[in-house]
């Protein structure tokens, strides 16, 4: 049984004509799989490698370089909340925000809340520094996340 559905395969293969080498589809493929499965299991790595005429080791090599991808043992929760800790946010309470969020969800950075709903991570500058402290929810920034807004945010993400 394959872990990649036909739909996922088609999505991946649609990227092939864009590049002169199939290997260039590695990152798009990893994103497609992780968006759907919330992680990239080893079996999926093998199947991506098959689709792109690569060795699974090549796909894994690329995947493991980028901190964004999760293996099967560390899947993402339903939402991923990144708290920025770089300088502009750090100067306006970014580290404290990360601490607060972790305490409220009873996790360490990288962990997922018990109900499986929210994965918390630290981020380096997410390019939203005019709204420091800023966070990223999956791939969209939320600005000016002062401590008084944390409860409402977590509530929203749990829904």
């Amino acid at each position, binding site marked *: 049984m394959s872990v990649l559905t036909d739909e996922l395969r088609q999505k991946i293969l649609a990227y092939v004509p864009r590049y002169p080498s199939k290997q260039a589809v590695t*990152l798009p493929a990893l994103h497609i799989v992780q968006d759907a499965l919330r992680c990239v299991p080893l079996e999926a790595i093998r199947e991506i490698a098959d689709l792109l005429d690569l060795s699974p080791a090549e796909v894994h090599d690329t995947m493991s370089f980028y*901190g964004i*991808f999760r293996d099967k043992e560390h899947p993402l929760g339903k939402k991923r909340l990144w708290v920025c800790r770089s300088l*502009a946010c750090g100067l306006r309470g970014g580290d404290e925000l990360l601490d607060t969020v972790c305490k409220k969800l009873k996790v360490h950075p990288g962990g997922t809340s018990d109900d499986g709903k929210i994965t918390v991570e630290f*981020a380096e*500058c997410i*390019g939203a*520094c005019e709204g420091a402290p800023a966070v990223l929810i999956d791939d969209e920034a939320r600005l000016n996340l002062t401590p008084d807004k944390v409860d409402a945010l977590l509530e929203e993400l749990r829904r």
Partner: protein
Amino acid sequence: MAEFEPVLLRRIAKKASPWLEAYRADGGYRALQKALDEMSPGQVVDAVKASGLRGRGGAGFPTGLKWTFLPKDHPGPIYMCINADESEPCTFNNRILMEEDPHQVLEGIILSCYATRAATAYLYLRYEYGRGYRVLQQAIDELYNNNLLGRNILGKDFHLDIFLHRGAGAYICGEETGLIESLEGKRAWPRIKPPFPAVEGAFRKPTVVNNIETVACVTHIIDRGVEWFKSMGVPPDPKNPRDAGSYGPKLYCISGHVNNPCCVELPMGITLRDLVDKHGGGVWKGRKAKGAIPGGISMGIMTEAEFDTPLDFAGPGKVGCLGLGTAAVTVFDEETSIVDVLHNICRFFSHESCGQCTPCREGTGWMLKIAERLRRGQGRLEDLKILEEVGDKIGIMPGTTICGLADGAGWPVKNAIRKFRPEFEQYIRSAEKSSLLELVGGH
């Protein structure tokens, strides 16, 4: 002096619609029409060269000159890689351009591809810019539907595809050869140069890498002309034959301890002090500034006494900083501990070093360990010397690493120590004293 009228932010300032119809009604794609009707690719290159435009991505390399490094009469393909990785801490101007006025950027990309004869452009976009990704994709779809992308653009013998390629959360993908490796589906390990991308880049073909703001400037150079571009900014220093000048408008980002963090467009060359006071609303809470980073954290640190430095390509270097970088200024106030600033910066580079070169991988790691130790109050005076030494020795400038990440990691560290030494020494001494007292008290 007349109030400066923004150009890159013109439509954004008036909250104009980002979509094609509105952009065209505002004169959009006029420059492209003009180039395709009246100019050869070589003439577009010449115009950009004559304008003095220098890359906005951090290195400040003259754009037209870079384009001429492509091999002549190459059978192709030639690739254009647009660098939208924008991961230098405290920098967000590319994001605003892409999210709010995508066609201005896309028109610049199309013009740049026409000039360089590239038939495929990959826009490498950091993953974190999800909103930008969706806006750009919609704008690109509009272009395909209106004969502004694809085959025979505007009826001419000119074909171009633009593909968005999303990154995966690594700063090093902004380094141009790291970007290329990442695009090719590999880990983003920067390549040893030469060969430079213009000779052998993406998929081993000649490649141009340009920043988002750079190509946005190209749109206006073709639309408004070379003289317009050169009418603002700072001309080359006649005493320095290697200075190529700092012409044109620039997007400055202001963040940190200011009342009004924002992105503003100004003629190149405003001083850091004017930027903070006139556009950033001054330092917050009625405090004074202690210092600032002038162009992303890689460029080093300026003390408050150095704030009258002009932010053009040559300015920051005159006060011991690495350069203008991304022109992103982050201010820290007088109550901020320089030890905290140092620690924050070291943590970033230790996390983002790609690990390929030992001096960078180990150097950034050790600088962080030492910064952590200092911060815990367990620092020693010798640590300052070690930090300076590592800062001096890692990088392409001393010749020990493959890419410039290491120079950018070392620079703020040595600036911090050399410019704020008394504060570091006092911090270490008072921590020593308090730990002695603890020992005494414990008996």
